[in-house]
């Protein structure tokens, strides 16, 4: 007897079909699993056996062979338990073989209940692409149901899955998805004072510019950075699916949300953890987990230089390709980076109260770390001063929602133009006419040594965003002048 069904393997964020074939042969107590399974998949045999017994059926005393095909695609994890169990039941005649035209994914526990899986969203993507229904654990159903066009049947146990497949029970509706935007996000109204940083944050959000904040400890750099996701435009459903896929590829379950993700790796994190890596199957790193969201590099000066260099190419291309012996995968990595740094090792250089205690050589070393090609990617650079007491007691500032409305409007203009300003190339910048006043101001800045050639592009990108924030079609002199104030120095 033979039966087959479909499950899914994730290659990067791409959902590839895995055909699960089950064959039941002569009476003999043998259960073999073939088709490049990893250890977790191989252990499926024991879970499937126990789960089937828990449904009240006897496990067939036959020679059972399960093949996961294509055989050359590496399969990992416990998510094939459910489709293997369904395949075995169909092959032994407990289920009509024709009923298995569906995609399923889920881990079985020994008592037959179905657990959450990291490929549930992939299964829904594949199912909607093929026009098939999709069976996932109840906990995953809300997420999977967000995939456009997916018919998702949540199940709590193998017995329920069997009943749904056999048609003896009408499938339940997936639970309603939660709130679109997490309301628990930290709000900008909690930030007192810091008008410069607030403005920089708004411009950064509106144009998706990388932002560098240099300032003494306690200036609120980290606090401000954490509030950036709250003023970014909410993710579109497609973006949210993409982000959720990436997170599940990293074995993390992110509840489905329109809030842009926020990641803040510690400076001691390894390159594999930040960029992505792992053996034999690469996992997405922090930069991919922050895709469409914010990657905070706190204490930038403490990150090893090789790590910052490794971040350069992904930041530029918005994706990262990780090659390992086992496989080569590409993960999206279009994160917006906020870097925060002390101005010097002791942290007080430029502070209005505390003197700096660094030696010249230590300062020199630190400054060298904070410059170079990596920082060329940061369009906005500001110095965050430590707030004075009366601003801390000042009136409540504008909340995130009001700021976000302006950001969304500015983004809309950019999308109609074709690209976010943070990613504009010089060629794209040059497509717009440059007024005489603007030209003269930029030329003056270059003549004065205030701006380098590369700096001109940065200033023009930021000025474009400043203009978009007020809905101005043309980049005027005042927009360039403001952008000049954000050119910063490290």
């Amino acid at each position, binding site marked *: 007897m033979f039966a087959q069904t479909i499950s899914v393997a994730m290659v990067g964020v791409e959902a590839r079909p895995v055909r699960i074939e089950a064959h039941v042969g002569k009476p003999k107590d043998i259960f073999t699993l073939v088709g490049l399974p990893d250890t977790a998949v191989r252990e499926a045999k024991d879970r499937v056996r126990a789960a089937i017994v828990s449904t009240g059926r006897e496990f067939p005393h036959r020679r059972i062979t399960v093949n996961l095909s294509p055989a050359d695609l590496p399969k990992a994890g416990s998510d094939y338990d459910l489709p293997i169990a369904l395949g075995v039941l169909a092959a032994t005649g407990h289920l009509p073989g024709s009923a298995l035209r569906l995609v399923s994914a889920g881990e079985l526990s020994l008592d037959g209940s179905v657990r959450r899986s990291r490929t549930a969203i992939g299964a829904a993507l594949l199912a909607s692409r093929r026009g098939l229904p999709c069976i996932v654990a109840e906990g995953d159903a809300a997420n999977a149901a967000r995939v456009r066009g997916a018919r998702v049947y949540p199940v709590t146990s193998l017995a329920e899955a069997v009943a749904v497949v056999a048609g003896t029970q009408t499938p339940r509706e997936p639970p309603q998805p939660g709130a679109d935007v997490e309301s628990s996000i930290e709000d900008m109204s909690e930030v007192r004072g810091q008008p410069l940083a607030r403005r920089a944050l708004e411009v950064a959000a509106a144009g998706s510019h990388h932002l560098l904040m240099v300032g003494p400890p306690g200036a609120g750099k980290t606090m401000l950075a954490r509030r950036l996701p709250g003023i970014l435009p909410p993710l579109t459903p497609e973006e949210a699916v993409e982000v959720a896929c990436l997170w599940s590829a990293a074995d993390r379950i992110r509840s489905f949300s329109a809030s842009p993700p926020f990641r803040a790796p510690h400076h001691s994190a390894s390159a594999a953890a930040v960029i992505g890596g792992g053996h034999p199957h690469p996992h997405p790193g922090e930069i991919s987990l922050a895709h469409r969201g914010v990657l905070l590099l706190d204490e930038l000066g403490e990150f090893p230089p090789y790590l910052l260099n490794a971040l350069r190419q992904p930041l530029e291309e918005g994706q990262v390709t990780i090659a390992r012996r086992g496989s080569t995968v590409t993960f999206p990595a279009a994160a917006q980076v906020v870097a925060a740094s002390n101005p010097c090792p002791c942290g007080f250089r430029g502070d209005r109260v505390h003197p700096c205690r660094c030696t010249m050589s230590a300062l020199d070393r630190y400054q060298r770390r904070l410059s170079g090609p990596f920082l060329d990617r940061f369009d906005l650079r500001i110095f965050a001063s430590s707030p004075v007491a009366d601003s801390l007691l000042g009136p409540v500032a504008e909340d995130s929602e009001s700021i976000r409305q302006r950001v969304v409007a500015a983004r809309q203009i950019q999308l109609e133009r074709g690209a976010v300003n943070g990613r504009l190339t010089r060629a794209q910048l040059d497509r717009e006419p440059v007024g005489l006043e603007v030209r003269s101001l930029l030329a003056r800045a270059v003549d004065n040594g205030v701006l380098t050639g590369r700096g001109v592009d940065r200033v023009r990108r930021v000025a474009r965003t400043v203009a978009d924030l007020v809905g101005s079609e043309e980049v005027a002199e005042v927009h360039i002048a403001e952008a000049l*104030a954000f050119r910063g120095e490290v």
Partner: protein
Amino acid sequence: MNELGQVVNLEGLLRSVPDRPGAMWARGTLPSGPGVAIVGTRRCTAYGRAVATALGRAVAASGRLVVSGLARGIDAAAHRGTVEVAGIGYAVLGSGIDVLYPPENRELADRLICAGGGLLSEYPPGTPPAAFRFPARNRIIAGLSAAVVVVEAPVAGGALITARLALEQGKEVLAVPGDIDRPTSMGCNLLIRDGAHPVLSPSDLLETLEFLMGPAPRGGSGTAGLPETATLDDILAGSERPPGEILADLARAELAGKGTLERGQFSRRPG
């Protein structure tokens, strides 16, 4: 306004010029009062060029008008200093207002106009540049100025003519001293021997001008009324205006040499 500019009457400003033209062509703005002429030879040395730029920068940053030609050498160097600090400068041409000569100074002319200065000429549009017209132009440069600074000049040259015309018009003449074995400084040293005030440094020049012309008018940038040094946060928090506008003002002020934006602070440059 087009390339041909507008026809203007500057007789009021040129009262000291005996044979002043009744009408002139102008592009950009008109001088609001007497300026400071910075003149010299076209074939200048690197020393002269550097000094002319430094003086142009200092005079313009102090809020005074810089007057010169648009020729190569000292003229262009002085105006380059002017536009560097977004100061106001006027170039008096020896050709038609639409004939910008030499061509490499066209951009400089644009920037003078953008920064709020302008071009002036007494010749009708289309008049080609010619050597014989330049001495005549020099009397206008002297006429528009309260003081004439000669940066570098050989003994025989247009700059010394300007100095002589200035003296005839009753204007003060200053000269930048130079090496005695350098032909391009001979004219200046000669002027000093004959009683011209020597220019010892840009700030020395500013002091002399203060004495000659009274205090310089202050430029109206957004930095007036600020303390010497203030953090951007304090400046932004202390105003009802949108932060973007204030930041733009501060950036402009920095480019105009009126202060520096550094480490989140704006420091006003004294003077």
